């Protein structure tokens, strides 16, 4: 990360990623997404859709559960 003072307001610090930081973060992200793909890859797209639909159906019953 690098920190610099704002040209407009000296009290404001602006933060951005350095080139090395960008590279590191991109490496971490690509690794993270690959792991995620392997986790969710066991389900087909239609299975994922069904899973979400079932969970949403369960979620819809939550207010009644809370109110009980």
């Amino acid at each position, binding site marked *: *990360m690098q*920190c*610099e003072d*704002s040209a407009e307001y000296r009290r*404001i*610090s*602006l*933060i*951005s*990623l350095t080139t090395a930081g*960008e590279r590191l*973060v*991109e490496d*971490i*992200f690509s*690794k*993270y997404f690959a*792991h995620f793909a392997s*986790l969710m890859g066991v389900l087909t797209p239609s299975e994922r859709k069904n899973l979400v639909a079932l*969970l949403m159906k*369960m979620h819809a019953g939550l207010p009644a559960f809370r109110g009980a």
Partner: protein
Amino acid sequence: MPRAVKHILLIVYVAATVYFDLRLLRNSRNSLRALVFRGMRRQLWLISPGPGCFRRVGGQMPLTAACLLDRSRGKKSPSATPENYLAITFHPIPKYERLQRMAERYPSLDPDSILTNCIVQSISEEVAAAKKEMLARDGLSEGRLHVLALFLERRPQPLSHSELAYLMDSAIWNITSLWTGEVVVDAM
């Protein structure tokens, strides 16, 4: 009082103090929100959602939600091989027979719905813990990942503290230590 008796009493007092202190320490350690278990084969960094959610299993098979499901149905899971390392189990899944026995006493109890709910909860917690463990290997948390994603999305434009706090939907004082290159967002 003879000197020997005094010494014996002192030793008993010290031993009792150490014993109770160790017990207290063990109990307080269990109630910490962040538990760190050092396995013989791997290290697990898991953040507990609350005290009593995790149970440490030493010298036994690693119990995943799938293993627990098999066990609740009285089957031996093929994936459950005895290995001598520490594993974490989440909310214990009750045995189906036990739920059936309870249903005789409580007619409103539906064993299938209880079991389904326990499995959904257990698997979701296990997936969340695996994600946290994976991020922790790179020194990240979900909050830190979110911050880094914001910086990547907005590049090459820099962000101010207030912009970051707004985008994170958080208070500005939660965004600290950015000057040193370390973003502290764990409290969010």
